[in-house]
């Protein structure tokens, strides 16, 4: 066995340039696939992290009948005594923060234009609002008792030339189905670097949001951050109550998790296509080697090498080529990913409701690297079946005659 690997290695060394370029072809394929996988991985990870931070939290407690898409405000769809629920939840050991939020759909009236927005009433001082406080880029966060202040996102501010101190009118749906409106002052501008969020979300103190929508002391939900997100299911199971329902970050981000599994399936498909193409390069190299070494195959079988052993020799060659290619691919892949992440590629959000950042970056995971490496090895070995069988099928006499030299 060792001898076969040694022979395979030296055989590859006979035509170094050809062996190198075959390995390089595989390496380039692997590195580009790694980069793609890393970009997808990064998108999904940061998408999930951003969504949890700004929007979904790790857990939400809502009224059973609450419909997120409609941002329903009817009292029956809202949570009674959200402050009390939040306080009780915050006392749980696994919970790091909990506080109520109220969502309402609204319209900003600015001169002639009216812009659909989502009004979000939050407790400005709560730990769950830290991402907003930290992303204020101009002015300041509204105070909890502010009755005429809002904070708007950077995208909105830029598009409609709004600055801190400007006035605007907000119309919102109310609990009894009417529309109410009031003039507000822009206290500050935040930028979470997530256009899909910043472009549409207007923040105001929870108390003011409750007042303007007529929701009383009710809220759409209580948002909970956990110390460890893997405990979401356990904590959710512990929260029981009539008329309420608990949602975990996984179910709240169904679109993202679905996208992830879809992306993963698609990536495997893409892996197979690209690796199939690079494998033809390896097969080509081996077929040439079989032709060039016909006489040697004859000698080896004259010495009593069995067909399996002849096949093993060519498999060893393709395995060495594959390992070399994979090594090149991983090194190049790591370089590509580092470069890509350092620069970042600007994008505009395309997918509605998914919070992606302003720039594409890449995160290489061990799992992706291993999956791809193993797959590359398997695909290459399977393709090597053809030249290996070709070599093993030669009759010793034919093979010996094949390369008879003068």
């Amino acid at each position, binding site marked *: 066995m060792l*001898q076969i690997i040694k*022979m395979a290695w*030296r*055989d590859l*060394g*006979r035509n170094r340039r050809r062996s190198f370029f075959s390995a390089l072809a595989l390496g380039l394929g692997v590195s580009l696939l790694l980069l793609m996988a890393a970009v997808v991985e990064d998108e999904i990870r940061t998408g999930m992290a951003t969504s949890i931070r700004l929007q979904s939290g790790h857990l939400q407690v809502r009224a059973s009948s609450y419909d997120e898409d409609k941002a329903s405000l009817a009292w029956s769809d809202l949570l009674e005594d959200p402050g009390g629920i939040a306080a009780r939840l915050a006392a749980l050991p696994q919970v790091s923060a909990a506080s109520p939020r109220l969502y309402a759909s609204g319209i900003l009236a600015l001169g002639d234009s009216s812009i659909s927005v989502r009004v979000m009433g939050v407790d400005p001082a709560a730990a769950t609002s830290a991402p907003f406080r930290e992303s204020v880029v101009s002015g300041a966060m509204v105070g909890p008792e502010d009755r005429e202040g809002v904070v708007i996102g950077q995208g909105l501010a830029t598009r409609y030339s709004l600055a801190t101190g400007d006035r605007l009118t907000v119309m919102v749906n109310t609990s009894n189905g009417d529309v109410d409106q009031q003039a507000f002052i822009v206290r500050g501008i935040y930028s979470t670097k997530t256009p899909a969020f910043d472009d549409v979300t207007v923040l105001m103190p929870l108390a003011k949001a409750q007042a303007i929508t007529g929701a009383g002391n009710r809220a759409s939900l209580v948002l909970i951050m956990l110390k460890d997100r893997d405990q979401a299911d356990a904590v959710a199971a512990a929260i029981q109550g009539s008329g309420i329902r608990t949602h975990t970050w996984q179910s709240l981000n169904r679109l993202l998790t679905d996208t992830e599994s879809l992306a993963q399936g698609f990536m495997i498909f893409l892996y197979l296509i690209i690796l199939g193409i690079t494998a033809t390069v390896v097969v080509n190299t081996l077929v040439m080697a079989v032709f060039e070494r016909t*006489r*040697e195959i004859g*000698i*080896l*079988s*004259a*010495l*009593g*090498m*069995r*067909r399996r*052993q002849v096949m093993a020799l060519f498999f060893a060659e393709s395995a060495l080529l594959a390992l070399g290619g994979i090594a090149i691919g991983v090194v190049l892949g790591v370089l590509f990913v580092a470069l890509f992440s350092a620069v970042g590629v600007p994008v505009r959000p395309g997918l509605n409701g998914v919070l992606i950042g302003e720039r594409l970056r890449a995160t290489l995971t061990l799992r992706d690297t291993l999956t791809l490496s193993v797959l590359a090895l398997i695909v290459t070995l399977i393709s090597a079946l053809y030249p290996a069988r070709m070599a093993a099928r030669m*009759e*010793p*006499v034919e093979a*010996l005659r094949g390369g*008879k*030299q003068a």
Partner: protein
Amino acid sequence: MEVARVENVTRSFKLGDVETHALRGVSLAIQDGEFTALVGPSGSGKTTLLQIIGCLDQPTSGRVYVGGSEVTRLGRDQRADLRRDKIGYVFQFFALIPTLTAYENIEMPLLLNNTPAGPRAARVKELLDTVGLASRGGHRPDQLSGGEQQRVAIARALAKRPAFILADEPTANLDTTNGQQVMDLMTRLNREGGVTFIFATHDPRVIGYARRVVTLRDGALVSDAAAGG
């Protein structure tokens, strides 16, 4: 003791509608310790006969026995095993594996028959000594002369102590001196080690070494005679 025997062996090749009868019913038995020359004009079937005795090729009809088993009834892998265990080859072109050193080439048959490392190394060293190449073990074939390569090939054929060694025109690609050296080596191995050789040749000087001369013409055995050696 008989090491190999062919009975009424024919071998024909079809190329399109042309059929060549390379062997037309040859019977021959090889005894242990013989030093046999297979002679005859070009195209008379010497190589074909050696390949059939050596289990590299199958006859069109007739039977072949090597070491008691009937080769014509064996499968591919069993024939490979027979070649591995019983038969040594020396070819006209110095059939060494170019990527392996002289040492590794000689070692190859011992690896194939799973000789343990200790005895294997001892055997290879001994063989390098026997063929007078003790200091050249680390050289690759392209760093050796034709005569040296052929001696390595003989050492490789000897390695597993085969029942017999087949040599197809072993000196045809060598100059007189190197040819003589190779024939002297084979003779010495036969006389001192009892190694059985069957070699094909055209060369009258090489025929002179033989103790038995088998002559083929047009695929048929025309004479089989003892010789002086």
